[in-house]
Protein backbone atom coordinates (compact mmCIF):
# COMPACT_ATOMS: atom_id res chain seq x y z
CA UNK A 1 0.00 0.00 0.00
CA UNK A 2 1.19 3.53 -0.71
CA UNK A 3 0.74 6.07 2.06
CA UNK A 4 1.49 9.79 1.88
CA UNK A 5 2.20 11.54 5.17
CA UNK A 6 2.42 15.30 5.63
CA UNK A 7 5.57 16.01 7.66
CA UNK A 8 5.68 19.35 9.47
CA UNK A 9 9.10 20.74 10.30
CA UNK A 10 10.26 22.04 13.65
CA UNK A 11 13.42 23.98 12.99
CA UNK A 12 15.37 21.73 10.66
CA UNK A 13 13.91 18.36 11.64
CA UNK A 14 10.52 16.67 11.54
CA UNK A 15 8.20 17.86 14.32
CA UNK A 16 7.53 15.36 17.11
CA UNK A 17 3.83 15.16 16.14
CA UNK A 18 4.84 14.29 12.56
CA UNK A 19 7.17 11.51 13.77
CA UNK A 20 4.16 10.08 15.56
CA UNK A 21 2.09 10.40 12.38
CA UNK A 22 4.87 8.69 10.40
CA UNK A 23 4.93 5.83 12.92
CA UNK A 24 1.17 5.42 12.43
CA UNK A 25 1.45 5.78 8.64
CA UNK A 26 4.17 3.11 8.43
CA UNK A 27 1.83 0.73 10.19
CA UNK A 28 -0.95 1.53 7.69
CA UNK A 29 1.42 1.05 4.73
CA UNK A 30 2.28 -2.39 6.10
CA UNK A 31 5.28 -4.58 5.33
CA UNK A 32 6.52 -3.97 1.79
CA UNK A 33 4.36 -0.84 1.53
CA UNK A 34 5.57 2.52 0.39
CA UNK A 35 5.72 5.35 2.92
CA UNK A 36 6.23 8.77 1.37
CA UNK A 37 6.76 12.02 3.28
CA UNK A 38 5.42 15.30 1.94
CA UNK A 39 7.55 18.20 3.11
CA UNK A 40 7.27 21.96 2.67
CA UNK A 41 10.59 23.73 3.20
CA UNK A 42 14.07 22.31 3.27
CA UNK A 43 14.01 18.49 3.51
CA UNK A 44 15.16 17.17 6.87
CA UNK A 45 18.29 15.01 6.72
CA UNK A 46 17.55 11.84 4.75
CA UNK A 47 18.66 9.56 7.57
CA UNK A 48 16.13 11.05 9.96
CA UNK A 49 13.19 10.23 7.68
CA UNK A 50 14.75 6.97 6.50
CA UNK A 51 14.97 5.82 10.12
CA UNK A 52 11.17 6.03 10.26
CA UNK A 53 10.86 3.85 7.16
CA UNK A 54 10.23 6.68 4.70
CA UNK A 55 11.26 5.61 1.20
CA UNK A 56 10.37 8.80 -0.69
CA UNK A 57 10.20 12.46 0.27
CA UNK A 58 8.34 14.92 -1.97
CA UNK A 59 9.82 18.29 -1.11
CA UNK A 60 8.30 21.60 -2.11
CA UNK A 61 11.13 24.08 -1.57
CA UNK A 62 10.55 27.62 -0.26
CA UNK A 63 11.47 28.95 -3.72
CA UNK A 64 8.38 27.14 -5.06
CA UNK A 65 5.98 27.92 -2.26
CA UNK A 66 7.08 30.10 0.63
CA UNK A 67 5.30 30.11 3.97
CA UNK A 68 2.29 28.24 5.24
CA UNK A 69 -0.72 28.43 2.92
CA UNK A 70 -3.26 25.72 3.84
CA UNK A 71 -5.10 25.52 0.53
CA UNK A 72 -1.85 25.49 -1.47
CA UNK A 73 -0.47 22.72 0.72
CA UNK A 74 -3.65 20.72 0.14
CA UNK A 75 -3.33 21.34 -3.61
CA UNK A 76 0.18 19.85 -3.49
CA UNK A 77 -1.13 16.78 -1.63
CA UNK A 78 -3.94 16.39 -4.19
CA UNK A 79 -1.37 16.50 -7.00
CA UNK A 80 0.75 13.87 -5.28
CA UNK A 81 -2.27 11.62 -4.79
CA UNK A 82 -2.75 11.55 -8.57
CA UNK A 83 0.97 11.16 -9.19
CA UNK A 84 1.56 8.30 -6.73
CA UNK A 85 -1.86 6.62 -6.72
CA UNK A 86 -1.75 6.78 -2.92
CA UNK A 87 -4.15 4.58 -0.96
CA UNK A 88 -4.13 6.89 2.06
CA UNK A 89 -3.05 10.42 2.97
CA UNK A 90 -2.29 11.11 6.62
CA UNK A 91 -1.17 14.03 8.76
CA UNK A 92 -0.72 14.66 12.47
CA UNK A 93 -3.87 16.04 14.10
CA UNK A 94 -2.18 19.38 14.75
CA UNK A 95 -3.67 22.78 13.89
CA UNK A 96 -1.93 22.74 10.53
CA UNK A 97 -2.39 19.03 9.87
CA UNK A 98 -6.12 19.20 10.58
CA UNK A 99 -6.53 22.34 8.49
CA UNK A 100 -4.63 21.04 5.44
CA UNK A 101 -6.43 17.69 5.51
CA UNK A 102 -9.80 19.45 5.75
CA UNK A 103 -8.87 21.44 2.64
CA UNK A 104 -7.78 18.23 0.91
CA UNK A 105 -11.14 16.67 1.77
CA UNK A 106 -12.93 19.70 0.33
CA UNK A 107 -10.75 19.77 -2.80
CA UNK A 108 -11.23 16.09 -3.56
CA UNK A 109 -14.81 15.80 -2.32
CA UNK A 110 -13.74 12.89 -0.11
CA UNK A 111 -14.48 12.32 3.57
CA UNK A 112 -11.74 13.26 6.05
CA UNK A 113 -11.49 11.39 9.32
CA UNK A 114 -10.11 13.42 12.22
CA UNK A 115 -7.97 12.02 15.02
CA UNK A 116 -7.66 8.36 14.11
CA UNK A 117 -6.36 5.87 16.62
CA UNK A 118 -6.25 3.07 14.06
CA UNK A 119 -7.06 2.53 10.39
CA UNK A 120 -7.13 -0.88 8.73
CA UNK A 121 -8.13 -1.53 5.14
CA UNK A 122 -10.87 -4.11 5.13
CA UNK A 123 -11.36 -4.66 1.41
CA UNK A 124 -13.30 -3.14 -1.46
CA UNK A 125 -16.84 -2.00 -0.77
CA UNK A 126 -19.95 -2.53 -2.91
CA UNK A 127 -19.06 0.21 -5.40
CA UNK A 128 -15.41 -0.74 -5.64
CA UNK A 129 -13.97 1.95 -3.34
CA UNK A 130 -11.72 0.74 -0.55
CA UNK A 131 -13.30 0.28 2.86
CA UNK A 132 -11.45 0.97 6.07
CA UNK A 133 -12.16 -0.04 9.65
CA UNK A 134 -11.49 3.07 11.70
CA UNK A 135 -11.15 3.86 15.37
CA UNK A 136 -11.14 7.59 16.03
CA UNK A 137 -11.32 9.96 18.94
CA UNK A 138 -14.33 12.02 19.87
CA UNK A 139 -14.52 14.45 22.78
CA UNK A 140 -10.75 15.01 22.50
CA UNK A 141 -10.11 11.35 23.28
CA UNK A 142 -12.60 10.89 26.13
CA UNK A 143 -14.66 8.75 23.76
CA UNK A 144 -13.75 6.40 20.91
CA UNK A 145 -15.80 5.82 17.77
CA UNK A 146 -15.66 2.63 15.71
CA UNK A 147 -16.54 3.53 12.14
CA UNK A 148 -16.47 2.29 8.57
CA UNK A 149 -14.91 4.53 5.97
CA UNK A 150 -15.48 4.08 2.27
CA UNK A 151 -12.95 6.16 0.35
CA UNK A 152 -10.05 5.93 -2.10
CA UNK A 153 -7.76 7.33 -0.97
CA UNK A 154 -8.51 7.43 2.75
CA UNK A 155 -7.87 10.90 4.20
CA UNK A 156 -7.22 11.10 7.93
CA UNK A 157 -5.43 12.88 10.73
CA UNK A 158 -3.68 10.93 13.46
CA UNK A 159 -4.46 11.31 17.18
CA UNK A 160 -0.81 11.87 18.06
CA UNK A 161 -1.26 11.43 21.82
CA UNK A 162 -2.07 7.75 21.21
CA UNK A 163 1.08 6.91 19.19
CA UNK A 164 4.63 6.97 20.54
CA UNK A 165 7.22 7.97 17.92
CA UNK A 166 9.16 4.80 16.99
CA UNK A 167 11.78 4.36 14.25
CA UNK A 168 11.37 1.40 11.89
CA UNK A 169 13.04 -1.94 12.68
CA UNK A 170 15.16 -1.48 9.58
CA UNK A 171 15.84 2.00 8.18
CA UNK A 172 14.81 2.71 4.59
CA UNK A 173 16.88 4.39 1.91
CA UNK A 174 15.30 7.71 1.14
CA UNK A 175 14.83 9.14 -2.33
CA UNK A 176 14.18 12.88 -2.37
CA UNK A 177 11.96 14.26 -5.14
CA UNK A 178 11.95 18.02 -5.71
CA UNK A 179 8.28 18.79 -6.23
CA UNK A 180 7.05 21.53 -8.55
CA UNK A 181 3.59 22.51 -7.32
CA UNK A 182 0.83 23.39 -9.75
CA UNK A 183 -1.28 25.89 -7.89
CA UNK A 184 -4.66 27.31 -8.82
CA UNK A 185 -5.86 30.91 -8.56
CA UNK A 186 -6.64 31.79 -4.99
CA UNK A 187 -4.57 29.00 -3.44
CA UNK A 188 -2.33 31.61 -1.81
CA UNK A 189 -5.15 33.97 -0.76
CA UNK A 190 -4.67 32.80 2.82
CA UNK A 191 -1.01 32.59 3.75
CA UNK A 192 0.56 32.91 7.19
CA UNK A 193 2.94 35.62 8.20
CA UNK A 194 4.67 34.40 11.34
CA UNK A 195 5.07 37.26 13.75
CA UNK A 196 8.25 37.75 15.74
CA UNK A 197 6.58 37.50 19.12
CA UNK A 198 7.87 34.02 19.90
CA UNK A 199 8.01 33.92 23.67
CA UNK A 200 11.36 32.90 25.12
CA UNK A 201 9.97 30.82 28.00
CA UNK A 202 8.95 27.19 28.33
CA UNK A 203 5.75 26.38 26.44
CA UNK A 204 2.82 24.69 28.16
CA UNK A 205 2.54 21.99 25.47
CA UNK A 206 6.16 20.82 25.87
CA UNK A 207 6.94 21.69 29.53
CA UNK A 208 8.52 18.92 31.66
CA UNK A 209 6.64 20.09 34.73
CA UNK A 210 3.24 21.76 34.84
CA UNK A 211 1.84 23.16 38.09
CA UNK A 212 -1.93 23.34 37.65
CA UNK A 213 -4.29 25.71 39.40
CA UNK A 214 -8.08 25.46 39.50
CA UNK A 215 -11.04 26.99 41.25
CA UNK A 216 -9.42 26.13 44.58
CA UNK A 217 -6.81 28.83 44.00
CA UNK A 218 -9.63 31.21 44.86
CA UNK A 219 -8.94 34.19 42.62
CA UNK A 220 -6.49 35.98 40.37
CA UNK A 221 -4.20 36.84 43.29
CA UNK A 222 -3.65 33.28 44.45
CA UNK A 223 -1.27 32.09 41.75
CA UNK A 224 2.04 33.52 43.05
CA UNK A 225 3.04 30.39 45.04
CA UNK A 226 2.18 28.19 42.03
CA UNK A 227 4.29 30.41 39.76
CA UNK A 228 7.15 30.26 42.23
CA UNK A 229 6.97 26.46 42.42
CA UNK A 230 6.76 26.14 38.63
CA UNK A 231 9.82 28.36 38.16
CA UNK A 232 11.72 26.42 40.81
CA UNK A 233 11.01 23.16 38.95
CA UNK A 234 11.78 24.63 35.51
CA UNK A 235 8.13 24.32 34.52
CA UNK A 236 5.08 26.46 33.87
CA UNK A 237 1.66 27.09 35.37
CA UNK A 238 -1.41 25.63 33.67
CA UNK A 239 -4.99 26.27 34.71
CA UNK A 240 -8.45 24.78 34.45
CA UNK A 241 -11.26 26.16 32.30
CA UNK A 242 -13.06 27.86 35.18
CA UNK A 243 -9.94 29.92 35.84
CA UNK A 244 -9.86 31.30 32.30
CA UNK A 245 -13.66 31.71 32.09
CA UNK A 246 -13.50 33.80 35.26
CA UNK A 247 -10.71 35.85 33.68
CA UNK A 248 -8.28 35.02 36.53
CA UNK A 249 -5.61 33.93 34.05
CA UNK A 250 -5.16 34.23 30.28
CA UNK A 251 -6.69 31.50 28.11
CA UNK A 252 -3.30 30.43 26.70
CA UNK A 253 -2.59 28.84 30.10
CA UNK A 254 -5.66 26.59 29.94
CA UNK A 255 -5.10 22.83 30.06
CA UNK A 256 -8.04 20.89 28.62
CA UNK A 257 -10.21 20.05 25.65
CA UNK A 258 -10.63 23.72 24.70
CA UNK A 259 -7.09 24.65 25.71
CA UNK A 260 -3.76 22.85 25.48
CA UNK A 261 -3.03 19.13 25.69
CA UNK A 262 0.05 18.65 27.87
CA UNK A 263 2.55 15.80 28.12
CA UNK A 264 4.82 16.59 31.10
CA UNK A 265 6.74 14.22 33.38
CA UNK A 266 4.81 15.72 36.29
CA UNK A 267 1.44 17.42 36.44
CA UNK A 268 0.83 18.80 39.92
CA UNK A 269 -2.89 19.63 39.96
CA UNK A 270 -3.69 22.09 42.77
CA UNK A 271 -7.27 22.90 43.68
CA UNK A 272 -8.55 21.25 40.50
CA UNK A 273 -11.64 19.09 40.88
CA UNK A 274 -11.03 17.13 37.66
CA UNK A 275 -13.86 17.88 35.24
CA UNK A 276 -13.62 15.57 32.28
CA UNK A 277 -12.85 18.40 29.86
CA UNK A 278 -9.73 19.11 31.96
CA UNK A 279 -8.73 15.43 32.07
CA UNK A 280 -8.78 15.42 28.24
CA UNK A 281 -5.88 17.87 28.40
CA UNK A 282 -3.72 16.29 31.10
CA UNK A 283 -4.30 12.53 30.74
CA UNK A 284 -1.02 12.11 28.82
CA UNK A 285 1.09 13.40 31.73
CA UNK A 286 3.48 10.71 32.95
CA UNK A 287 2.71 11.37 36.62
CA UNK A 288 -0.27 13.24 38.05
CA UNK A 289 -0.15 14.38 41.67
CA UNK A 290 -3.16 16.18 43.12
CA UNK A 291 -3.26 18.66 45.96
CA UNK A 292 -6.87 19.04 46.98
CA UNK A 293 -8.83 19.79 50.13
CA UNK A 294 -11.57 17.37 49.03
CA UNK A 295 -10.59 13.71 49.33
CA UNK A 296 -13.62 12.82 47.14
CA UNK A 297 -12.68 15.08 44.20
CA UNK A 298 -12.81 13.29 40.81
CA UNK A 299 -9.17 14.27 40.14
CA UNK A 300 -8.17 11.63 42.69
CA UNK A 301 -9.30 8.86 40.37
CA UNK A 302 -6.97 10.16 37.67
CA UNK A 303 -4.00 11.03 39.88
CA UNK A 304 -1.32 8.63 41.03
CA UNK A 305 -0.68 10.42 44.32
CA UNK A 306 -2.52 13.02 46.34
CA UNK A 307 -2.03 15.36 49.24
CA UNK A 308 -5.28 16.16 51.02
CA UNK A 309 -5.07 19.72 52.22
CA UNK A 310 -5.22 23.42 51.52
CA UNK A 311 -3.02 24.30 48.57
CA UNK A 312 -2.44 27.76 50.08
CA UNK A 313 -0.54 26.06 52.90
CA UNK A 314 0.88 23.01 51.11
CA UNK A 315 2.44 24.81 48.12
CA UNK A 316 4.37 27.48 50.06
CA UNK A 317 5.61 24.72 52.41
CA UNK A 318 6.68 22.66 49.40
CA UNK A 319 8.52 25.64 47.90
CA UNK A 320 10.29 26.23 51.21
CA UNK A 321 11.21 22.55 51.54
CA UNK A 322 12.65 22.38 48.02
CA UNK A 323 14.62 25.58 48.58
CA UNK A 324 15.96 24.29 51.90
CA UNK A 325 16.98 21.06 50.21
CA UNK A 326 18.76 23.02 47.46
CA UNK A 327 20.57 25.05 50.12
CA UNK A 328 21.80 22.00 51.99
CA UNK A 329 22.89 20.10 48.87
Amino acid at each position, binding site marked *: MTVLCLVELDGTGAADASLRALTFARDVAGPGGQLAAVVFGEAPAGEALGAYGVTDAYVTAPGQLAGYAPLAWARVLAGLVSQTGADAVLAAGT*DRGSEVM*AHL*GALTGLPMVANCVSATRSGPGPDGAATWQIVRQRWAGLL*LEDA*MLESSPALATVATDTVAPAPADAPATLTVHAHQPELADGDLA*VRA*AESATRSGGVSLATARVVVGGGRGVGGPDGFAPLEELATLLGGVVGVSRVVTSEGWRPHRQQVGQTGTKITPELYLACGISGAIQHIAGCASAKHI*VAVNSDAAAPILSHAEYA*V*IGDLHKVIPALVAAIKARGGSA
Partner: protein
Amino acid sequence: MEILVCVKRVPQVGGKIVVTADGQDVDTRMSGFAMSPHEECAVEEAIQITERLGGGVSVLTLGPPDAAEQLREALALGAGRAVLLETDGREWGPVATADEIVAEARRDDGGPGYDLLLLGNEAADTGDYQVGVRVAHTLGWPCATGIKGIEITDGTVRARREYRGAEELFEFGLPAVITVKEGINLPRYPSLPGRLRAKRAVIETHQPRWRPDGLRKQALRVPATERKQATVLGNGVDAVPALVTLLGEMGVLP
Protein backbone atom coordinates in the same frame (compact mmCIF):
# COMPACT_ATOMS: atom_id res chain seq x y z
CA MET B 1 -21.46 43.72 8.08
CA GLU B 2 -23.78 40.72 8.03
CA ILE B 3 -22.46 37.75 9.97
CA LEU B 4 -23.76 34.18 10.12
CA VAL B 5 -22.63 32.20 13.15
CA CYS B 6 -23.00 28.41 13.02
CA VAL B 7 -23.37 26.73 16.40
CA LYS B 8 -23.89 23.18 17.61
CA ARG B 9 -25.87 21.78 20.51
CA VAL B 10 -23.69 19.28 22.38
CA PRO B 11 -24.12 17.27 25.58
CA GLN B 12 -22.80 19.01 28.67
CA VAL B 13 -20.38 16.60 30.29
CA GLY B 14 -19.06 17.11 33.79
CA GLY B 15 -17.40 14.25 35.64
CA LYS B 16 -17.65 11.45 33.08
CA ILE B 17 -19.11 10.44 29.74
CA VAL B 18 -21.61 7.57 29.59
CA VAL B 19 -22.64 5.92 26.33
CA THR B 20 -26.22 4.76 25.73
CA ALA B 21 -26.93 1.01 25.81
CA ASP B 22 -27.08 0.80 21.99
CA GLY B 23 -23.64 2.40 21.73
CA GLN B 24 -24.87 5.11 19.37
CA ASP B 25 -24.93 8.23 21.51
CA VAL B 26 -23.75 9.92 24.65
CA ASP B 27 -26.24 9.28 27.43
CA THR B 28 -27.68 12.68 28.29
CA ARG B 29 -30.33 11.63 30.78
CA MET B 30 -28.19 12.91 33.67
CA SER B 31 -26.72 15.92 31.90
CA GLY B 32 -27.95 18.91 29.98
CA PHE B 33 -26.95 20.41 26.68
CA ALA B 34 -24.94 23.48 25.83
CA MET B 35 -23.55 25.35 22.90
CA SER B 36 -20.16 23.89 21.94
CA PRO B 37 -17.55 26.10 23.71
CA HIS B 38 -15.67 27.50 20.70
CA GLU B 39 -19.03 28.52 19.22
CA GLU B 40 -20.06 30.45 22.33
CA CYS B 41 -17.02 32.56 21.54
CA ALA B 42 -17.97 32.77 17.85
CA VAL B 43 -21.35 34.27 18.86
CA GLU B 44 -19.64 36.76 21.17
CA GLU B 45 -17.12 37.70 18.49
CA ALA B 46 -19.86 38.31 15.93
CA ILE B 47 -21.72 40.57 18.35
CA GLN B 48 -18.53 42.51 19.14
CA ILE B 49 -17.74 42.96 15.43
CA THR B 50 -21.21 44.32 14.65
CA GLU B 51 -21.03 46.59 17.73
CA ARG B 52 -17.92 48.13 16.17
CA LEU B 53 -18.86 48.07 12.49
CA GLY B 54 -22.66 47.92 12.43
CA GLY B 55 -24.72 45.24 10.70
CA GLY B 56 -26.45 42.18 12.05
CA VAL B 57 -25.82 38.72 13.42
CA SER B 58 -27.74 35.65 12.33
CA VAL B 59 -27.26 32.34 14.11
CA LEU B 60 -27.78 28.91 12.60
CA THR B 61 -27.81 25.41 13.94
CA LEU B 62 -28.40 22.02 12.42
CA GLY B 63 -29.93 19.75 15.00
CA PRO B 64 -33.08 18.33 16.58
CA PRO B 65 -36.04 20.61 17.46
CA ASP B 66 -34.57 21.07 20.97
CA ALA B 67 -31.54 22.79 19.43
CA ALA B 68 -33.77 25.88 19.27
CA GLU B 69 -32.67 26.31 22.90
CA GLN B 70 -29.10 27.09 21.75
CA LEU B 71 -30.42 29.49 19.11
CA ARG B 72 -32.38 31.33 21.81
CA GLU B 73 -29.20 31.56 23.91
CA ALA B 74 -27.54 33.33 20.99
CA LEU B 75 -30.58 35.55 20.44
CA ALA B 76 -30.49 36.52 24.12
CA LEU B 77 -26.87 37.60 23.71
CA GLY B 78 -27.65 39.87 20.78
CA ALA B 79 -28.10 37.87 17.58
CA GLY B 80 -31.00 39.29 15.57
CA ARG B 81 -32.15 36.30 13.58
CA ALA B 82 -32.07 32.52 14.02
CA VAL B 83 -32.27 29.63 11.58
CA LEU B 84 -32.91 26.04 12.63
CA LEU B 85 -32.06 23.30 10.16
CA GLU B 86 -34.21 20.76 11.87
CA THR B 87 -33.15 17.11 11.89
CA ASP B 88 -34.94 13.97 13.02
CA GLY B 89 -32.30 13.36 15.67
CA ARG B 90 -29.94 11.37 13.46
CA GLU B 91 -26.32 12.48 13.54
CA TRP B 92 -25.17 14.38 10.46
CA GLY B 93 -21.65 14.07 9.07
CA PRO B 94 -19.44 17.07 8.29
CA VAL B 95 -19.88 16.94 4.49
CA ALA B 96 -23.68 17.03 4.54
CA THR B 97 -23.65 19.62 7.35
CA ALA B 98 -21.37 21.90 5.34
CA ASP B 99 -23.65 21.58 2.30
CA GLU B 100 -26.66 22.74 4.32
CA ILE B 101 -24.75 25.73 5.72
CA VAL B 102 -23.82 26.66 2.17
CA ALA B 103 -27.47 26.41 1.15
CA GLU B 104 -28.38 28.87 3.93
CA ALA B 105 -25.55 31.24 2.99
CA ARG B 106 -26.83 31.27 -0.58
CA ARG B 107 -30.55 31.26 0.23
CA ASP B 108 -32.01 34.04 -1.83
CA ASP B 109 -35.25 34.89 -0.08
CA GLY B 110 -34.60 38.44 1.03
CA GLY B 111 -32.09 37.20 3.63
CA PRO B 112 -29.17 39.40 4.51
CA GLY B 113 -26.43 38.05 2.23
CA TYR B 114 -23.44 37.40 4.45
CA ASP B 115 -20.02 39.07 4.58
CA LEU B 116 -18.63 36.69 7.17
CA LEU B 117 -19.35 33.18 8.44
CA LEU B 118 -18.08 32.28 11.90
CA LEU B 119 -17.90 28.73 13.25
CA GLY B 120 -16.10 26.96 16.08
CA ASN B 121 -12.76 25.37 15.21
CA GLU B 122 -14.18 21.96 16.06
CA ALA B 123 -17.32 20.70 17.75
CA ALA B 124 -16.77 19.46 21.32
CA ASP B 125 -18.51 16.15 20.61
CA THR B 126 -17.61 14.90 17.12
CA GLY B 127 -14.40 16.90 16.69
CA ASP B 128 -14.39 16.69 12.88
CA TYR B 129 -12.25 19.83 12.31
CA GLN B 130 -13.58 20.49 8.80
CA VAL B 131 -17.07 21.94 8.44
CA GLY B 132 -15.87 25.56 8.10
CA VAL B 133 -13.22 24.65 5.54
CA ARG B 134 -15.71 22.71 3.43
CA VAL B 135 -18.20 25.57 3.53
CA ALA B 136 -15.50 28.05 2.44
CA HIS B 137 -14.39 25.79 -0.35
CA THR B 138 -17.87 25.45 -1.84
CA LEU B 139 -18.55 29.18 -1.54
CA GLY B 140 -15.11 29.97 -3.01
CA TRP B 141 -14.34 32.18 0.01
CA PRO B 142 -11.02 32.41 1.87
CA CYS B 143 -10.89 30.51 5.17
CA ALA B 144 -8.82 30.69 8.33
CA THR B 145 -9.16 28.20 11.20
CA GLY B 146 -8.30 28.12 14.89
CA ILE B 147 -8.38 31.92 15.10
CA LYS B 148 -7.92 33.76 18.40
CA GLY B 149 -8.03 37.37 17.21
CA ILE B 150 -9.98 39.16 14.44
CA GLU B 151 -9.61 42.74 13.20
CA ILE B 152 -11.57 44.00 10.21
CA THR B 153 -10.73 47.22 8.41
CA ASP B 154 -12.21 48.32 5.08
CA GLY B 155 -13.18 44.82 4.01
CA THR B 156 -9.83 43.28 4.96
CA VAL B 157 -9.55 40.74 7.76
CA ARG B 158 -6.49 40.31 9.94
CA ALA B 159 -6.84 36.99 11.77
CA ARG B 160 -4.35 35.78 14.37
CA ARG B 161 -3.72 32.36 15.80
CA GLU B 162 -1.14 30.68 17.99
CA TYR B 163 1.48 28.51 16.41
CA ARG B 164 4.07 26.77 18.61
CA GLY B 165 4.37 29.57 21.11
CA ALA B 166 4.48 32.21 18.38
CA GLU B 167 1.68 33.85 16.48
CA GLU B 168 0.70 33.56 12.83
CA LEU B 169 -1.22 36.24 11.07
CA PHE B 170 -3.49 35.76 8.05
CA GLU B 171 -4.74 38.65 5.95
CA PHE B 172 -7.54 38.25 3.42
CA GLY B 173 -10.60 39.96 2.01
CA LEU B 174 -14.29 39.55 2.75
CA PRO B 175 -16.49 37.62 2.28
CA ALA B 176 -14.73 34.91 4.28
CA VAL B 177 -15.16 31.96 6.63
CA ILE B 178 -13.37 31.98 9.99
CA THR B 179 -13.36 29.26 12.64
CA VAL B 180 -12.47 30.46 16.12
CA LYS B 181 -11.17 28.97 19.34
CA GLU B 182 -12.12 29.62 22.92
CA GLY B 183 -9.89 32.40 24.28
CA ILE B 184 -10.63 34.83 21.44
CA ASN B 185 -12.88 36.67 23.93
CA LEU B 186 -14.78 36.19 27.18
CA PRO B 187 -18.45 35.60 26.27
CA ARG B 188 -20.90 37.93 27.99
CA TYR B 189 -23.91 36.87 30.00
CA PRO B 190 -27.37 37.49 28.55
CA SER B 191 -29.30 40.50 29.82
CA LEU B 192 -32.88 40.21 31.07
CA PRO B 193 -34.29 42.19 28.11
CA GLY B 194 -32.19 39.96 25.87
CA ARG B 195 -33.74 36.85 27.37
CA LEU B 196 -37.24 38.22 26.93
CA ARG B 197 -36.56 39.17 23.34
CA ALA B 198 -35.13 35.70 22.66
CA LYS B 199 -38.17 34.03 24.16
CA ARG B 200 -40.49 35.86 21.78
CA ALA B 201 -38.32 35.61 18.67
CA VAL B 202 -39.54 33.58 15.71
CA ILE B 203 -37.06 30.95 14.57
CA GLU B 204 -36.88 30.33 10.85
CA THR B 205 -37.00 26.57 10.32
CA HIS B 206 -36.05 24.35 7.40
CA GLN B 207 -36.01 20.58 7.24
CA PRO B 208 -33.08 19.33 5.21
CA ARG B 209 -33.02 15.68 4.24
CA TRP B 210 -30.48 13.45 6.00
CA ARG B 211 -27.93 11.67 3.89
CA PRO B 212 -24.91 9.59 4.85
CA ASP B 213 -21.32 10.84 4.81
CA GLY B 214 -18.42 8.64 3.75
CA LEU B 215 -17.68 7.78 7.37
CA ARG B 216 -20.32 5.63 9.04
CA LYS B 217 -20.46 5.41 12.81
CA GLN B 218 -20.75 1.87 14.15
CA ALA B 219 -20.42 2.36 17.89
CA LEU B 220 -19.13 4.69 20.56
CA ARG B 221 -17.22 3.49 23.59
CA VAL B 222 -15.34 4.90 26.53
CA PRO B 223 -11.64 4.02 26.22
CA ALA B 224 -10.53 1.36 28.64
CA THR B 225 -8.31 3.13 31.14
CA GLU B 226 -7.29 1.92 34.52
CA ARG B 227 -9.55 3.71 36.92
CA LYS B 228 -7.09 4.12 39.73
CA GLN B 229 -7.44 5.79 43.06
CA ALA B 230 -4.61 8.06 44.11
CA THR B 231 -2.28 6.99 46.89
CA VAL B 232 -2.70 9.61 49.60
CA LEU B 233 0.69 10.86 50.77
CA GLY B 234 -0.79 12.58 53.79
CA ASN B 235 -2.74 15.55 55.01
CA GLY B 236 -1.75 19.20 54.74
CA VAL B 237 1.81 20.38 55.29
CA ASP B 238 2.66 17.15 57.10
CA ALA B 239 2.70 15.48 53.69
CA VAL B 240 5.33 17.85 52.29
CA PRO B 241 8.43 15.72 53.15
CA ALA B 242 6.85 12.70 51.41
CA LEU B 243 5.95 14.90 48.45
CA VAL B 244 9.54 16.19 48.16
CA THR B 245 10.85 12.61 48.23
CA LEU B 246 8.36 11.61 45.53
CA LEU B 247 9.29 14.53 43.27
CA GLY B 248 12.94 13.57 43.76
CA GLU B 249 12.18 10.01 42.60
CA MET B 250 10.40 11.41 39.56
CA GLY B 251 13.53 13.37 38.71
CA VAL B 252 11.85 16.76 38.58
CA LEU B 253 13.62 18.51 41.46
CA PRO B 254 16.27 21.12 40.65
